[in-house]
């Protein structure tokens, strides 16, 4: 189990290698890499800054990682989320899930990123030609996360 919240970039290939090395029960790894887009809400974005809540952010990521492991048979999970100022094309977040079975790897990876978007304590500020602005939460993200709810009480929510 690994959760990292860091300013530094990450190396996707190296992380997958570290997760799978000499572990021959793993049949599949699903990875999701989130990247900064140059357009958001129709406006050009020259950069964004991610703020987090040191301590709580790591705790919440650890809690959801434990939840994913409870729901799916996973060999390993890695969550890496950056904070600070990022430019278009920069990597923001990495989710890796490893399992004997691809279905478990896919579903748990999708679950984790949908959760990160709606429940992880991060806040985005975008730099646009119209000035800086805080990004508002999207209803579509809540909808995406809601489909994973097993019952009305969402973990951590």
């Amino acid at each position: 189990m690994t959760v990292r919240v860091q300013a530094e970039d990450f190396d996707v290939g190296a992380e997958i290698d570290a997760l799978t090395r000499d572990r021959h029960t793993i049949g599949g790894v699903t990875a999701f890499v989130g990247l900064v887009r140059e357009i958001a809400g129709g406006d050009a974005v020259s950069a964004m800054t991610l703020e987090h809540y040191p301590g709580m952010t790591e705790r919440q990521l650890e809690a959801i990682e434990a939840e994913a492991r409870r729901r799916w048979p996973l060999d390993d999970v890695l969550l890496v989320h950056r904070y600070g100022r990022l430019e278009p094309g920069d990597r923001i977040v990495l989710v890796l899930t490893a399992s004997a079975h691809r279905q478990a790897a896919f579903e748990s990876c999708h679950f984790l990123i949908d959760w990160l978007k709606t429940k992880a304590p991060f806040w985005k500020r975008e730099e646009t030609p119209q000035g800086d602005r805080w990004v508002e939460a999207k209803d579509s993200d809540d909808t995406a996360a809601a489909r994973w709810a097993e019952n009305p009480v969402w973990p951590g929510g």
Partner: protein
Amino acid sequence: MKVLYFAWLRTRIGVAQEVVEPPAEVTTVGGLVEWLKTRGPTYASALANTKVVKVAVNQEYVPYDHPVGPGDEVALFPPVTGG
């Protein structure tokens, strides 16, 4: 009691964190938010719409009826927008 503010709550109130001593009647998150609004116009304005003010006590998400006390770390922030 330590209170932390994040994102536009931080920039609008102009404070990242502060130590406050609310009166003894303040025993819940909801009570704390109402008391904070009385501390000045920037507080009243930033906290006016509590639909977009989420709360964590001791680094766990909680509802407005959750208890708060002197030793707690309380954080106020807008809905999250990470990933």
